[in-house]
């Protein structure tokens, strides 16, 4: 294990973290503000990616398809909110779990029917197809730097939106106590619809950004869904800052765990035992992290005010 390799893995971990943040930002917003468990968030990420595939194929431009996905996902979010989810904001969390899970199953199968079962690929946009040399023989695609940039931009933007704008203030107030906010004459219905639309948009955006590096497959959102929930619960539900820190932590722990678990274990036990336990431990690492955080701080690292 060399210093350059370690630094490279550190970068990989941070980049994974930023991508996780992109995926979980929308989820924590929806869960935090509306108390709505949206299991379909991973499926929305998938829809965003598949839309990017079709739009890039049709328009020939990744940038154009990215810009088009924003309104498409926003409208999809509004549609889902109006048609289905609005009936569930007052209902038990478990009913929300049931309805959003039903939606995942429908969306996963619909994608199979429309785009087929075979994995699909979106090419990296030409403008970002360059790369930098990280260490001897290892190139780092410029596109991954773009993902990091996009994630940081979203983090900053959301932060400003939530803490510095009136809408953001209403969102935070709505997260603390929706009824009082409604009683004060604010259109809570409209607010929730907006938040859901933004959440769907963020999910779709993360799907589009991820598409050039990851294969598209029906059900691709499922793995991300679990990771996103790990992130937002570790970070504190409803907290953008919590989601950001937790994403980086999860990304780092997962990547460094995978990279070095086996090597570290080899220091204390036989090579074959380490080869067995290492991957298993690496798979569990993020769950161990989450369980440890929750044990000491059951509401997460940075619980949104009023939720501790």
């Amino acid at each position, binding site marked *: 294990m060399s210093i350059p390799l370690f630094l490279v893995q550190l970068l990989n971990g941070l980049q994974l973290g930023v991508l996780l943040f992109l995926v979980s930002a929308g989820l924590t917003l929806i*869960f935090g503000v509306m108390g709505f*468990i949206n299991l379909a968030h991973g499926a929305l990420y998938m829809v965003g990616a598949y839309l990017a595939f079709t739009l890039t194929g049709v328009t020939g431009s990744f940038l154009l398809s990215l810009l088009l996905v924003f309104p498409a996902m926003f409208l999809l979010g509004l549609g889902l909110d109006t048609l*289905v989810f609005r*009936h*569930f904001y007052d*209902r*038990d*969390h*478990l*009913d929300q*779990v*049931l*309805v959003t*899970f*039903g*939606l*995942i*199953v*429908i969306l*996963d*199968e*619909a994608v*199979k*029917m429309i785009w087929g079962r075979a994995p699909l690929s979106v090419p990296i946009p030409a403008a970002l197809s360059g790369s930098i040399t990280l260490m001897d023989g290892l190139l780092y695609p410029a596109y991954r730097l773009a993902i990091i940039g996009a994630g940081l931009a979203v983090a900053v933007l959301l932060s400003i939106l939530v803490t510095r704008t009136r809408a953001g203030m209403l969102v935070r107030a709505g997260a603390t106590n929706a009824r009082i906010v409604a009683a004060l004459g604010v259109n809570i219905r409209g607010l929730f619809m907006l938040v859901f639309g933004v959440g769907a948009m963020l999910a779709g955006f993360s799907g589009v950004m991820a598409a050039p590096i990851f294969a598209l497959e029906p059900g691709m959102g499922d793995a991300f869904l*679990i990771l996103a*929930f*790990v992130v937002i*619960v570790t970070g504190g*539900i409803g907290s953008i800052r919590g989601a950001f820190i937790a994403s980086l932590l999860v990304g780092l722990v997962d990547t460094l765990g995978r990279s070095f678990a086996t090597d570290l274990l080899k220091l204390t036990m036989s090579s074959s035992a380490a080869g*067995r*336990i290492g*991957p*298993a431990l690496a*798979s*569990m690492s993020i*769950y*161990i992290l*989450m*369980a440890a955080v*929750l*044990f000491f701080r*059951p*509401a*997460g690292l940075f619980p949104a005010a009023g939720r501790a």
Partner: protein
Amino acid sequence: MWTRRLLPALLVAVVAALPLVTSADTSAFAVTLGSRMMLFAIAALSLDLILGYAGMVSFGHAAFIGIGAYAAGILDAENVGDVMIGLPLALVVSALFAGATGYIAIRTKGAAFLMITLAFGQMAFYLANSLDEFGGSDGLTLNNRATVAGADLLSSDLTFYYVILACLVLVFIFLRALVASRFGRVLRSTKEHPLRVAALGYNVDHVRLTAYVIAGAICGLAGYLMANQTEFVSPASMTWQTSGELMFMVILGGMSTLYGPLLGAAVIVGLENFLSGYWEHWPILLGAVYLVAALFARGGIVNLIRGAKP
């Protein structure tokens, strides 16, 4: 009144009679599918105790299925597959796992509890996946079903069907009594008014942990029987998707009704079995069922039938 005495007896009679009154082919099918439905019903019942009655939404419950199943598998692989050893082992290990993980999980609430139980479930899954000597991710085929004190009583599918039915009935009666008992009343109160319960002098955490351990042990029983019924065990029985399915059986059927999990298990296992033969893209229909049930059958199907409001 008739619901309390007559309905359960009627259900048991129908289920018991089913393999006997149908033709040989259909009977074998009824035994195979019915066994699977009943085993999931036992697992779903155990989840209802904590999810429905105590409001503890566990997303890692399938881990106990895995523990019970691997108890059966490992003992069989070591040639000591007997119910007298296996069953207590499955119950004890499940209870211990529930006790240890529950102790940590009880400190959290709501979404955090959901996720921490998921975390433990995933850890159990990855652990099972790494057991190369027991097949790892490919799993293990049992040489035979467990013997009962040395006697090869369970090898007949039909006999095992009745054994499973008996276990289901016992679990149902036990849980019904537990829920109606003082412990049960206190447990139910911790869902709505934990502060009041504490003020009355009860240790809310102890009550919940006890319920969690009982639920874990019962689910371990279901897992032990499942491994014997299919004569196979693998980590696939303890994925988070399976934990989710158990949750849906309880929610769809109707939480805190005890009949709900029975109905939910039968409906979901049945739908998956039948729908998959008709259309390549049958999961869309299943998703639609979940959607419609969530929209219109508030509180699950049982509550819809009863006309109750959540």
